[in-house]
């Protein structure tokens, strides 16, 4: 099949970008979307032009590197599918495809389709972990965890940190990402102890990084390649309100 591509080209963070038209010829329906871009890039290199820069690594839908916006949709048109797992059989011969980087204030463009998502790392660094040193922990079966809790924690823990949720949100919010981590850890007895502090720190970090707030659009859930649910945002909000109440009562106690 043959396709018309309009690809966002931008030399660096301080340059202006623009959409450039390319033709993708003789594309097999069994190719992945990134393999289609490989073919276009090989041709560009042969013509001594600079290939389209895009992040990618595992090409198995788990490392979270490859998020792009395809025809306006972060991670492309297929439900619960990363760009690397999207195959060309879902497009038609002669289609026009627009390919852009994730757009969000907190994710500045580095080059072409590559954006800087290090804000996510800083949200995790603010408290998205359980504070345990290596060694000196109890046997793994000492603390039992109800299967349902473990399964829901796993549902949340499946987040791959790709950033599609942020780009899909009209507010550029990172609530789904943060909520997934908060929920995963708050549901486990090991993570419960720090839950209050964690949710406050992570929420604050989110704000500092320039992410917006949740406006209940649910766009994040719609594009999430791992099917992370907005219910986790409700959980985040409950945790946060509970934490605020606890802090308030803590202050009163001190004042008294």
């Amino acid at each position, binding site marked *: 099949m043959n396709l018309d591509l309009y690809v966002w080209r931008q030399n660096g963070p301080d340059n202006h970008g623009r959409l450039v038209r390319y033709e993708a010829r003789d594309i097999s329906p069994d190719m992945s979307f990134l393999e289609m871009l490989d073919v276009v890039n090989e041709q560009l290199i042969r013509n001594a032009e600079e290939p389209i820069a895009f992040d990618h690594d*595992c090409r198995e839908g788990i*490392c979270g*590197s490859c998020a792009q916006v395809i025809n306006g949709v972060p991670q492309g048109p297929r439900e619960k599918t990363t760009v690397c797992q999207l195959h060309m059989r879902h497009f038609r011969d002669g289609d026009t495809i627009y390919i852009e980087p994730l757009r969000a204030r907190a994710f500045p463009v580095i080059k072409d389709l590559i954006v800087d998502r290090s804000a996510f790392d800083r949200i*995790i660094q603010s408290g998205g972990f359980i504070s345990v040193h*290596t060694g000196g922990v109890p046997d793994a079966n000492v603390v039992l965890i109800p299967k349902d809790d473990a399964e829901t924690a796993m549902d949340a*823990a499946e987040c791959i940190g790709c950033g599609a949720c942020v780009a899909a949100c009209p507010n550029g919010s990172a609530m789904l990402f943060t909520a997934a981590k908060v929920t995963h850890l708050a549901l*486990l007895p*090991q993570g419960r102890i720090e839950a209050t502090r964690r949710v406050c720190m992570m929420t604050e970090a989110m704000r500092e990084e320039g992410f917006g707030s949740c406006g209940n659009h649910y766009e994040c859930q719609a594009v999430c390649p791992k099917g992370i649910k907005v219910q986790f945002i409700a959980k985040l909000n409950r945790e946060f309100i509970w934490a605020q109440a606890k802090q308030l009562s803590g202050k009163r106690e001190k004042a008294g």
Partner: protein
Amino acid sequence: MTLDGKVPAGPLAEKWDRRQHEMKLISPANKRKFTILVVGTGLAGASAAATLGELGYRVEAFCFQDSPRRGHSIEAQGGINAAKNYPNDGDSIFRLFYDTLKGGDFRSREANVYRLAMLSNAIIDQCVAQGVPFARDYAGYLENRSFGGTQVSRTFYARGQTGQQLLLGAYGALSRQVRAGTVRLHPRTEMLDLVVVDGEAKGIIVRDLVTGHITAFAGDAVCLCSGGYANVYYLSTNAMGSNVTAAFRAYKKGALFANPCFIQIHPTCIPASGDYQSKLTLMSESLRNDGRVWVPKTKGDRRKPADIPEGERDYFLERKYPEYGNLVPRDIASRAAKEICDEGHGAGPGGRGVYLDFADALGRLGKEKIRERYGNLFEMYEKITGENAYSRPMRIYPAPHYSMGGLWVDYNLESTIPGLFVLGEANFSDHGANRLGASALMQGLADGYFIIPRTIAHYLAQTRPGMVKDDHPEFRKCGEEVSTRIRRLLSVKGRKTVTEFHRELGIIMWDLVGMERNEEGLRKALRLLPELRAEFWENVSIPGSGSALNQELEKAGRVADFLELGELMARDALHRNESCGGHFRIEHRMPDGEACRDDSACCYVAAWQFRGDDREPELHKEPLVFENVELAERNYK
């Protein structure tokens, strides 16, 4: 050079304790004076950096990905082994040790493997404490499943994403140390050389992948946790960025490269669909618990699998290996699949595929149970092939997956360059000639959480902190060498793309240094590879410049090293006159076709020393001594 594995004396079970007692410690007040450079943030790197940070060292952690959460360990699906014996099915530390040693075809160091088995239980405890959501039963206890090469269920798992969950656990621990200020992260940064001062590893040269800046980092010790080199085959299950450069640069600076020809070809991968294929996708080996492998009995049978009656199917693994059946180790399953396809029984495009059929398990357990166990794998299969594995069998074919070989290290994980430690897949130490499933995660975390924190202290205690600074002339010299190499690559301006060279390299390696090797083919590879390398340096085309983000340049540097590594692998495969594990020489096989080891002549680690670009590397041998097990034929029948 004599290779001293520095294995402690005494009974097997006491060796690690003894070593820990012999080793020097560093006081908490002094730890913060030492800087440790950790290259790579997969399981080994993240766990090492986090733990060293917790202990109070100053750690600089580097990764080429945009975030340390994306190391290739994240792709590991099936699970992690431990000798917990929770199911009460007869497991023990000794059994895990023996299975791993036997699985590796008795080509690994006994004491290392025993220590690995011993530490396995503490890893599970640690991960649970970090919040890794392992699978549990309805009473809240941890669940186990079985894996290839074992008859017990000792594998802990988190759906089909165990690697992801373990890595996110280690990444959490690492993030905690970043917050605490003990670890500094350097993402999108690639190590391009090792700096050796007065014979000891004292720093690295890195390239900032966004700006192209070349920078020197000095440290008191260097930990290489840079993963494996299966991408030398171009098509492999490794992430696209996985490369040998950091390890190969260390090899060129004097670290010995051990058993480079020991590569694992994984039996259950999705077959390639065309020439444009950029990588191969693994389907977790855990699928072999419930899937049955078969091919049509009739050669060239092109009927749909459902139309082939039971009597016309050959369940060849169950037929050839009745005791282990579909759960034989990876090397054996891979070879059996390739053989049967070479004979003309294969399914799918080019006859390169065998069926992995879940019909029996679906009948026995129901669709819900199968979905719970393997749901994400079935989804992934459907995304890639467009086929539904609940209603028709999967097609699978072997693909390069893991490198057992790597930089030579002693019992303390120290290479032949003092101060250079090598962890995880980047070292050669624990898996011999073949790795058992669910053992890579175990090794990466054992090295990072529990071994390196002890052994690196012993080295550091014998040095003065901050002895070498980055203004030492050696740093400038190395930095200039790196810049010159980059300029050389960019100045070729040839007509072939990096990927074209990589693909050609892959074909040579797969055909001649792949699953089956023989003398004639290996000699041919040793003729073809230098020619391809010469052509690369005359005809490669890399657009753009070195002073900005340039992904073709990154690839080119990696492929240049793969081209040299391929030659080393072929040389190693040629010299090893036996078949063992993943190294199968067709001249050396039993009458029934199985691998034929030569314990009298080949029971050693082959460690290669670089002696210059125009000279052959020198072979050193570390004899393998087995005090606690008898070398047995590896029989899974």
